């Protein structure tokens, strides 16, 4: 117990929290875009798992992490384009298709993994770390937050970019209108379907990237069902954040900390079953929903396909 609060333990805990937070952050930011535009993207778990698979395959065969991130993002976009076609273009039920995509790609990636990797279980080399000068020398905080793969900093920067997009650009306004009052957007001469298409594809890219990071950097390996509900956590983050990217970052860090605590406590030799600790993030969500429930407002047209001229 005495070394529970040692510098080393705390550093490892926070480093793990940041590593675990990045996929959640990317998924949450991605889901936020879709939700803003009025598409409840339950398929994000499927986008993430396919991104994790394609990201791992890309990185494994090319030997380049960045190529893996690229293929991961493309994998997510592929799943997203199915969602676009079925839910945005022809207006099928978003929840049904979302669940279908999640089930289907969970199964597909597990199947592909079985035929491809289940005998060898290949691993990737540890990811290259970019230390930020000066900041990375701060004790505890430095190694925890400023010695990560470059993508981690880019993901955090994306929070700022999204704030800018939502607040200052026409695209941000269009996204919001597509979720709150699509008919008004249509009257203003902007194509609702196209706006939502852009939104869902962006979600796919970000979710795929998150999945790829999870497999390539976080775990270094792809195993079936590796995302284990991370996409669903992304949905929760987006919902709790009520359209604010910064809140997604905060939420992702809290969840990351809970996930990191699982491994850290075991390393520290505290004997609590992993199942108990695995419950913490979900308990945290439920607690937050109970406390902030009433205020978690969602876009008015969330989940409703847009059909021009329909009442």
């Amino acid at each position, binding site marked *: 117990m005495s070394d529970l609060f040692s510098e080393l333990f705390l550093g490892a805990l926070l480093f793990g929290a940041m590593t675990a937070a990045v996929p959640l952050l990317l998924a949450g930011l991605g889901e936020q875009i879709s939700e803003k535009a009025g598409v409840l993207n339950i398929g994000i778990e499927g986008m993430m798992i396919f991104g994790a698979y394609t990201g791992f395959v890309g990185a494994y065969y090319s030997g380049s992490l960045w190529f893996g991130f690229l293929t991961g993002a493309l994998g997510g976009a592929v799943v997203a384009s199915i969602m676009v076609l079925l839910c945005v273009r022809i207006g*099928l039920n978003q929840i*049904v298709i979302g669940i279908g995509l999640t089930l289907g790609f969970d*199964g597909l990636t597990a199947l592909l993994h079985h035929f491809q990797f289940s005998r060898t279980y290949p691993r990737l080399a540890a990811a290259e770390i970019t230390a930020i000068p000066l900041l990375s020398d701060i004790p505890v905080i430095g190694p925890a937050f400023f010695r990560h793969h470059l993508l981690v900093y880019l993901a955090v920067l994306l929070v700022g970019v999204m704030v800018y997009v939502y607040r200052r650009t026409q695209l941000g306004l269009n996204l919001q209108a597509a979720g709150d009052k699509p008919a008004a957007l249509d009257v203003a001469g902007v194509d609702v379907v196209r706006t939502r298409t852009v939104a869902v594809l962006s979600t796919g890219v970000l979710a795929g990237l998150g999945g790829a990071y999870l497999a390539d950097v976080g775990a270094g390996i792809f195993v079936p069902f590796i995302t284990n509900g991370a996409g669903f956590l992304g949905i929760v983050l987006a919902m709790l954040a009520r359209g604010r990217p910064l809140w997604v970052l905060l939420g992702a860090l809290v969840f990351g900390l809970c996930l990191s605590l699982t491994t850290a406590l075991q390393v520290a030799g505290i004997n609590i079953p992993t199942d108990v600790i695995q*419950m913490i993030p979900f308990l945290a969500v439920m607690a937050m929903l109970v406390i902030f429930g*009433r205020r978690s407002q969602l876009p008015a047209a969330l989940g409703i396909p847009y059909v021009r001229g329909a009442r």
Partner: protein
Amino acid sequence: MSVDTAPVEMTERSIVARSPGMRKVVHRLVLTVGPVLAALALAGLLLLALGVDPLAYYGYVINRGLLSPSGIQQTLTRMAPLLFLASGLIVAFRAGIWNLGADGQFLLAAVTAAAAGPYFAAIMPAWLAVVLAFLMSVLVAMAWSFVPALLRAYQGVNEIITTLMMTFLGTSLANVLVKLVFLDPGTTVPQTRTLPVEDRLPRLFDTTISSGLVLGLIAIVAVHLVMTRTSFGLRLRIVGANPRAAVHSGLAVPRLTLAVFALSAGLAGAAGAVDILGVQGNVRADWNPAYGFAVIPMVFLARFNGFAAIAFVLLLSVLSIGGESAARRLGVPNHFTLVLVAIVLIVLAIAEYIDHRFIQSRKA
């Protein structure tokens, strides 16, 4: 249907289907069977790409899941929990409540049944023990849905998120209970005590089919009739179709919402109970068949119709029993069933859309 079709065409068509009602049924059947076949073909292409002969695989699955005597008995037994889950989902979905937490409710009920069953069986007649364990499981599942129910009914919090979270929580909690609280000290594998075979739900006649099947069939038919033939069902459907209209017409929407959650979760709990009290006898650590998620597409495919759901549950049951067997013998993991279900769901949704467009364009 358009009225202005030529009389000649009418007589030609009437050979296929005599009355408009009959024609509707045939239309529905074609619209269902066609896409299922198309989906099987599509999934077959995937098998081909993986180097597996699709015809051999499907043949094996149908043989093991439907045609062989032991296979069909297993399939019918497997249907019991799936039917309960489907009926729970039908109640919720018809009332416009997306209970995606069936798996958590199922697992906690299963653990309850596994803990209570052997305990009661030791101190009272077996039939009473089974009944009590069953009721306790149902109550536990209902309780597990209470927080999402309250949040939805009185705070308007989206139940998709809360029930999903409760499922993740429930899966972990079930594991904790199995590993720490109800652990059978007599075995080396972490699992609960086992309910002796003679104390379980009786089997049907001379077969190995659990009588849970009958209970499941009763449940889904009852749910179908309640939802379509009673004023309570009508009220729930109004809430589902248009919650605002339901409020304005004076329905007690929050209270109806609570009732829907209790019914839906209770039926999911009954699924867990029949699976443990009829088939498994105990719960092993990390056991999670995730039936709930697999049943959701079936319920959609059945368009929330109880009788159609029975057919789709049979299909899922054949696929999963046959698929489990094929996983052992042909080396194709059972995950393929998930892919197949997803493809069926998507192809059917597209077919429905095309059909809808076709009818509309004929009307226009």
